[in-house]
């Protein structure tokens, strides 16, 4: 499996920076803190979790697919477009 990524444009960077920083700052601005587990002590935990979780889901699923699960469309000896 090859890692193919798209680097955002400068406008994309700007958008990401503004919204990302705003989202990360929200808990401090609104002083909304909770303590339900270790994760609530990690600053911006849910941002990390969303971003890295998404990356892990894509990479692991694609790797599983390439190594094992993905098969040609006629794998079961029948075409899907049969009518």
């Amino acid at each position, binding site marked *: 499996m090859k*890692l*193919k*990524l*798209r*680097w*955002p444009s400068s406008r*994309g960077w700007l958008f*990401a920076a503004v*919204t*990302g920083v705003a*989202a*990360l700052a*929200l*808990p401090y601005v*609104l002083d*909304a*803190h*909770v*303590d*339900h*587990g270790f*994760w609530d002590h990690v600053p*911006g935990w*849910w*941002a*990390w*979790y*969303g*971003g*890295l*979780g*998404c*990356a892990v*889901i*894509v990479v*692991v*699923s*694609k790797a*599983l*697919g390439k*190594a*094992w*699960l*993905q*098969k*040609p*469309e006629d*794998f*079961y000896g*029948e*075409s*899907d*477009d*049969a*009518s």
Partner: protein
Amino acid sequence: MRPDRKRHLLGLSLVVVAVAMLVAWQVPGLAAAAPQDDHGGHGEHAAGGDHGGHHGRVIAPPLHPDPVPVKTWPPALILIVGAVLLPLVPVRPLRALIAIGLPAYALTVIWGLPDGARLVVPIAGHELHVLEADRLSLVFGKIFALVGVIAGVYAFHNGDRRQQVASLLYNAGALGVTFAGDYFTLYAFWELMAVSSVILIWARDRADSQRAGRRYILVHLVGGAVLLFGIFLHVQSSGSILIDRFAPGTGGLAAWSILLGFCLNAAVPPLGPWLPDAYPRATVTGAIFCSALTTKTAVYTLLRVFPGWEVLAVAGVIMALYGVVYAVLANDIRELLAYHIISQVGYMVAGVGIGTTMALNGAAAHAVCHILYKALLFMGAGAVIQTTGREKLTELGGFWHRQKLIFGLYMIGAFSISGFPLWNGFVSKSMVVSAAGHVHWDWAFLLLMLASVGTFLHTGLKLPYGTWMGEDRGIQPRRAPANMVVAMAIGAFFCTLLGLAPGLLYQYLPYAVDWDPYTAPHVIEAVQLLLFTFFAFWVFVPMLHGEPTISMDTDVLYRKSAGWARALFVTSVGRLFDASEVAVRALARKVQEALGNPVRLVPGLRALPGADGERYDVDGSRLPLTVPISLLLLAFLLVWAVSRWS
């Protein structure tokens, strides 16, 4: 060893190790070590009764409202009678209107049922509880009837009598199971669902739909047989046909068989490959009923019979992630949505497994919300198929500006399923996830949050991006029938309404609700999670294009082995019959030859002139006239002698 087989082994062992680690690491472990304080809980309000006690987890008490005898028609019967009479209506729009009106009427009947309503019909020495309503069955009954109305509007333009009758019967099956108070009623409607839903797959009239439908019905009949086996065992051991809870871990083989039957319909892996196999091949309108009814009926039965079974919590979390992995690989848009049914039903199954009042409320609420937004998503995908004739990501893209309204309505469904604040998924999903937090099952909490990252990634980003945006392939979609858009708008309305005013949903849930999803920390958590998922999607988008492949699921076990099974049960039996026929014919020929001239078989007679031929020759084998005359005389003498003697 062949490299292919090596890969299979490696993949399988990875999955087994992962599952074993999950099971070994958790279920009793962290829960037992969990502090028994009451700070825990994810959210500002802890549902009463969720804390303290065994493992910090108190299973919600069963609902046993005081019975109120009623004399109304069971909602399922209304639909069945309607389905029987419907094909006789000659006017097409009128037929379509009736197909909408019947579930609407059933909905009003359900709305009028009091908590505890009961209708008992004595049949063959048994009392069948054909209608038993409590707060759990009422909320499911209402949503099943409501989605019947919405899907009916969506199918208004479709005059196919088969599909109209099948959808009504299918809806009747779901309502029958929901209000069944005894196992026999439940089983009858369970099978009605299987045989009517398969019509909606076959009605697409394509060869692959025929094949998928055959697999679908076979799998469901096997599942039904396992369920029936469990019911027999249960009735034999308990002496009662009434449906009641099994306390976690009790009930032995009967409970496990019933659980297995329910789990097959809930599409719990590895029993679930029938769902992504069949639903993408159903008709455009039929798939809406499929997406709403079978799995959610199974969730309802699990909620009724198996709350608090920890194995379901593990299974639910695995399901939630399993659907996500396959959705990355899916190319067919409705297959992607189908895998996300499995993922979303995972939350509900996990809720059943957690078993607290909050978790059961969450599972029921999520079922309601899921039925609404998943129907909306399937309606969006169906509209794409209807207007473009294409259903694969590799063939779609770049026409959102030519289909803005459908695209927009789909996105409301996508925001709902992804748990965006303001939409219904945010309310119901967080109830289940927070219920895991409340009982300090941190593993379930974190993994379910990870699955919701995957949900947004696929249903909210990959599918709409690949279908409507991305590369412009010059697709000019036809106009979608107005009724399709209206049905989508109704779905979108309810998704938004329940998101903005969750109290409307709370009042119908089985237990009292004390949960406010709109707290600052919870909203911020959702915003951060979804925003950064979006960023990661943006970077990874080149890896998320559709690929012209299919994904191997556990149905490989019965689809690939079909050749061997045919060799064993069809070809070899055929050969045996052929060989026996040849042998029997050869034997018959020998007998015929041997008996062609029986005279030859008697050594003394063979010497007669002309008696040795292949065939019996009357003249050649005839005895001289003296022989019969002598025999006749001899007989006469014998008779005379005997008569004299006596």
